């Protein structure tokens, strides 16, 4: 339960960029898991894929509901975080790591489209197999890889634009 909570929370936090929203969404995910556990059939796939798909659907619903608020308030905040962390990195060895890298990554992910963001999160944060990601997103494996390449490249460009050493 603890390991799954960590996975779901990390996915929600990386996607929404808000600790409180991630907590509420993680809670909602587990309540839905409890209510719909009967619909899970072990023969049709792994529990992890089922749980991730459920989380992803909830995140997409949440994103659609809050899309207008997010456009107005988040970008400026994210740019602020990037600038602050970059100035910190130039004072040290220029290479961010640990908590600072995590915060900058968060700011960078927020600049990606939801489609690319979810691909990057599922592969590079959640470390899922391409086959599993394809099942979660209900797209071919080739599409997953394509989105992943574009998402990673876009993230690197965003970070470089704000003078983050990558």
């Amino acid at each position, binding site marked *: 339960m603890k390991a799954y909570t960590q996975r779901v929370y*990390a996915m929600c936090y990386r996607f929404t960029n808000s600790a409180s929203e991630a*907590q509420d969404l993680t809670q909602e995910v587990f*309540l839905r898991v409890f209510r719909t556990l009967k619909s899970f059939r072990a023969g049709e796939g792994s529990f992890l894929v089922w749980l991730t798909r459920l989380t992803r659907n909830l995140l997409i619903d949440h994103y659609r509901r809050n899309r207008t608020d997010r456009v107005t308030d988040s970008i400026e905040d994210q740019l602020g975080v990037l600038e602050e962390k970059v100035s910190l990195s130039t004072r040290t060895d220029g290479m961010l790591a640990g908590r600072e890298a995590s915060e900058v990554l968060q700011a960078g992910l927020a600049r990606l489209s939801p489609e690319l963001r979810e691909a990057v999160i599922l592969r590079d*944060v959640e470390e899922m197999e391409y086959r599993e990601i394809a099942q979660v997103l209900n797209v071919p494996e080739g599409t997953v890889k*394509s989105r992943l390449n574009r998402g990673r*490249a876009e993230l690197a460009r965003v*970070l470089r634009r704000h003078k983050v050493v990558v």
Partner: protein
Amino acid sequence: MNCAELEILLCDYLDGALPAERKAEVEAHLAGCASCASLAKDAQAAVEFIGRAEVVEPPPELLTRILFHLRGEVQREAPVAAGARHWFAQWLRPVLQPKFAMGMAMTVLSLSMLGRFAGIEVRQLTAADLDPVKIVMNIEDRVHRGWLAVRKYYENLRLVYEIQTRIQEWTVPEEDDQPAANDASKGPATDGASGRPSTDRRERGAK
């Protein structure tokens, strides 16, 4: 290899999961295609940066909060399934209040104190005492001992009664005989001691 094929193979290339032959093909294409080389470079940089970032940990209270809400959810669904147990619990709910528990605790405490003052020895209950066989044997033993005590008391009572009856039987004839014996002994004695009164009486009667 064209750019579209490279895009499919790039993920496996960055993972280091390509066979040597395919890897050589990808590297050959990257050497000749600037846009694909740029894509590969950026993707590689992003993967490395994400690898350096700290893993996101949920706040410690989140799991407790989820479990609390799940428990609430279970309890909401429980009444349908609980049936008789739920009905029984609802009946007992007014009794199972803290004030009743406190009252019960005080009663037990008072009784134990009274028992202590009265000299009743209370033995500490052990796990072995809760063995059903031992409990049945204990009850049987107590019933047997109780029955023996009642029988003994009854027999003692009967013995006492018999003795009393026998004594009474013995004493009653004596009492019955006593007046006759008294009369018999009294007459000559009176006469012997003072013959005059009876003579007087006889004389008074004759007169």
